[in-house]
C-alpha cells in the first residue's frame, strides 16, 4: 500500500504509539485486500455496531479505553446500534437478574466511553441511523467507515454511499485516522454485479424471505435484481425504502451482501442500468416455490416445536414511522375481524428513539397502545442473546433475528394472524 507522508508518519509513530497501532491495523486490513491506498472518509457522521455493555466483551472496552487514555479520538461524531435492554420490554425476574447482574453490567461504563469517543447524542442508538428522525444519512458517493451489516447494505444500495462491510472496532479506527483502505465496495469495479437475480413470483415477495434466499445464494457477491420493481415500484418512497431496509438486512445476515442493485429503482441501477452487470454473471431465478423451499428449510430449535409462542418481536432492523402506522392499522383491522381488543401474546415493536418520539406525536400511538403492543428502542437480538430466551418460544418476522437467536420466523401476514388470535 502506498501511503502519503502524513499517513506514513502516523504509522511510524510520530503521533504516538497508540495511533501508530490504529494505522497499522488499517494498513494490514487493507493489505488483506491488496488495497493500493487509503482514501479520505467524506461522510458527516460515522456509525458503530458495538452498542452493548456485555461483561464478556471486556477486551473491546479495554481497547476503547486505550484509545481514550492516549487521547486518540475522532473529530467525526457517530451513531451506534440500539441499546440492549429496556424496562418496558417484558422480562421475568430471572431474566432481569441475568440481564442486569450478569450480562449487561458494563452498559453504563460503555455508554460513558461512547460519549467521550464522540456519540452524536444520547438518543443516537439505532441500527437504522439513516432515518430522518435519527439524522445520520450519508449523501450519494460519500465514503464511510461504518459497521452494522444492515446499515452498510442500505447506505451502499439505497443511498449510493460507498462503504465496505467493516467490522466493529475497524469502524472507529477508520474514523480516528480519517481514512479507509480503498478496496471492494469503494471501487467502481467492486460495485459491479456478479449475480443476476430474476424475480418470477406471482405475488409481492416477502422482503425478509427474498433477502434471505438471495443472501444464502450469493453470499458476499453483488446481486442485480430484476423484476422486483414490478412489486415495489420505481420510486424510492417510504414504502419502498422500508421494504429495501428489511430485504437488505436479510441479505446481509443470511449471507454477507454489502450492496445490491434493484433494476429501475436503486440509484446506481437507475443511472447505469445493466452496464453494472459484470461479464459472466451467474443467474438465480426466484419463484414462489423457491421462496417456499427456503422458508421450509429454516431449522426450528425450540425445545418443544409445537409450543405456543410467548413473545413476538417485530422491528429488526428497527421499524420506520410509516411501518409503525401501517402495523397499527393492520392490527386494529385484524383484531376487529377476530372479535378481540388486545393482542394475544406479548408483542414488542422496536424502532429508533427518534422514530418512537415522532410516532408518539401521531394519532396512531394511542391506537397501537390500545391494542396492547409495546414499543421499545432495544435491539431484540441483544435481548434474545441468552440461554433463558432459548427456552422461550419467541416468534418474529425478522430473518436477522431468526439467524442469530432461537426466534422462529414467520412472514408479516403470519405474525399478524398469530398476534391477533386468528387462524392459519
Amino acid at each position, binding site marked *: 500500500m502506498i501511503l502519503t507522508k502524513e499517513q506514513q508518519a502516523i504509522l511510524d509513530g510520530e503521533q504516538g504509539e497508540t495511533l501508530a497501532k490504529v494505522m497499522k*491495523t488499517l494498513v*494490514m486490513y487493507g493489505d488483506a485486500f491488496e488495497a493500493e491506498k487509503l482514501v479520505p472518509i467524506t461522510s458527516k457522521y460515522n456509525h458503530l455496531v*458495538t452498542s452493548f455493555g456485555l461483561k*464478556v466483551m471486556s477486551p*473491546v472496552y479495554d481497547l476503547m479505553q486505550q484509545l481514550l487514555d492516549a487521547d486518540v479520538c475522532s473529530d467525526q461524531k457517530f451513531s451506534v446500534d440500539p441499546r440492549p435492554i429496556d424496562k418496558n420490554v417484558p422480562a421475568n425476574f430471572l431474566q432481569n437478574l441475568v440481564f442486569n447482574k450478569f*450480562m449487561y453490567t458494563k452498559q453504563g461504563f460503555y455508554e460513558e466511553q461512547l460519549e467521550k469517543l464522540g456519540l452524536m447524542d444520547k438518543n443516537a442508538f439505532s441500527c437504522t441511523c439513516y432515518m430522518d428522525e435519527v439524522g445520520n444519512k450519508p449523501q450519494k458517493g460519500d465514503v464511510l467507515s461504518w459497521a452494522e451489516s444492515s446499515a452498510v447494505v442500505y447506505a451502499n444500495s439505497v443511498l449510493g454511499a460507498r462503504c465496505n462491510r467493516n467490522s*466493529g472496532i475497524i469502524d472507529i479506527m477508520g474514523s480516528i485516522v480519517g481514512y479507509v483502505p480503498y478496496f471492494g465496495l469503494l471501487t467502481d469495479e467492486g460495485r459491479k454485479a456478479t449475480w443476476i437475480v430474476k424475480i418470477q413470483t406471482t405475488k409481492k415477495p416477502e422482503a425478509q424471505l427474498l433477502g434471505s434466499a438471495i443472501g444464502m445464494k450469493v*453470499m458476499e457477491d453483488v446481486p442485480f435484481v430484476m423484476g422486483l420493481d414490478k412489486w415495489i415500484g420505481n420510486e424510492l418512497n417510504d414504502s419502498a425504502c422500508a421494504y429495501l431496509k428489511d430485504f437488505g438486512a436479510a441479505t446481509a445476515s443470511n449471507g*454477507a451482501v454489502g450492496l445490491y442493485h434493484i433494476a429501475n429503482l436503486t440509484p446506481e441501477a437507475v443511472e447505469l442500468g445493466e452496464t453494472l452487470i459484470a461479464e459472466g454473471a451467474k443467474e438465480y431465478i426466484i419463484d414462489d416455490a423457491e421462496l417456499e423451499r427456503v422458508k421450509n428449510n429454516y431449522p426450528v430449535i425450540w425445545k418443544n416445536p409445537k409450543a405456543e409462542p410467548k413473545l413476538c418481536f417485530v422491528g429488526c432492523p428497527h421499524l420506520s414511522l410509516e411501518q409503525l402506522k401501517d402495523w397499527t392499522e393492520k392490527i386494529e383491522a385484524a383484531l376487529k375481524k377476530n372479535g378481540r381488543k388486545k393482542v394475544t401474546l406479548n408483542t414488542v415493536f422496536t424502532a429508533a428513539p427518534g422514530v418512537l418520539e415522532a410516532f408518539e406525536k401521531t394519532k396512531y400511538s394511542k391506537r397501537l397502545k390500545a391494542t396492547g403492543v409495546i414499543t421499545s428502542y432495544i435491539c431484540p437480538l441483544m435481548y434474545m442473546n441468552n440461554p433463558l430466551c432459548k427456552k422461550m418460544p419467541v416468534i418474529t418476522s425478522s430473518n436477522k433475528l431468526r439467524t442469530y437467536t432461537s426466534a422462529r420466523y414467520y412472514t408479516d401476514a403470519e405474525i399478524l394472524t398469530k398476534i391477533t388470535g386468528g387462524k392459519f
Partner: protein
Amino acid sequence: MKQFKGRVVTPGEVTAEAIVTKEGFNTLASFQMALQFGDKEVKCGDQSNKELYGKSMLGKALCLPQTIGSTTGGLVLYCACSMQKNPACMLFANHIDSLAAAGAVLADVWVDGITMPVIDSLGDEFLNYVKDGMKITVKADGTVEVE
C-alpha cells in the same frame, strides 16, 4: 497426505485437528453463546450451520469458505482471541472476507502473545478434500498439509 498452498493473512505455524464447513461461517452466531456463558469447549452455536452446530471450535483448524453475517464478526473473533477461546487457525478456501480479515488483524496487532495463523485462497479442492478429524499442519509460508 496432501499439500495446499494459500496466502498468508496473519502468520504462524500450528498443527491441529480439522473441523470443516462448506457453508459460510457466521462468526457472531457461532461464538456468541459460547463466549457469553463460559462454554469451555467453545461449541458452535449457529443453528443454521448443520455441519458445525454443537461442535467444539477451541484449538481446532477451522476450514471454511468465508465468514458471513453481522459486522460484529471481527470484534467477536478479536474477543475470542483475547480470551484464548479461538480456533488454532482459520483456513479459507476463498479470498478472506472483510469481517474475518478485521478479526485476524485486530488480534494480531492488539492481543499480546496470540498466534492464530490465518491462510486464505486455498481453493475449492482444499475444502472438498479436508474432512472433520483430519490432521492439519500450517507452515509459515502458507502451505497447509492435510493428512
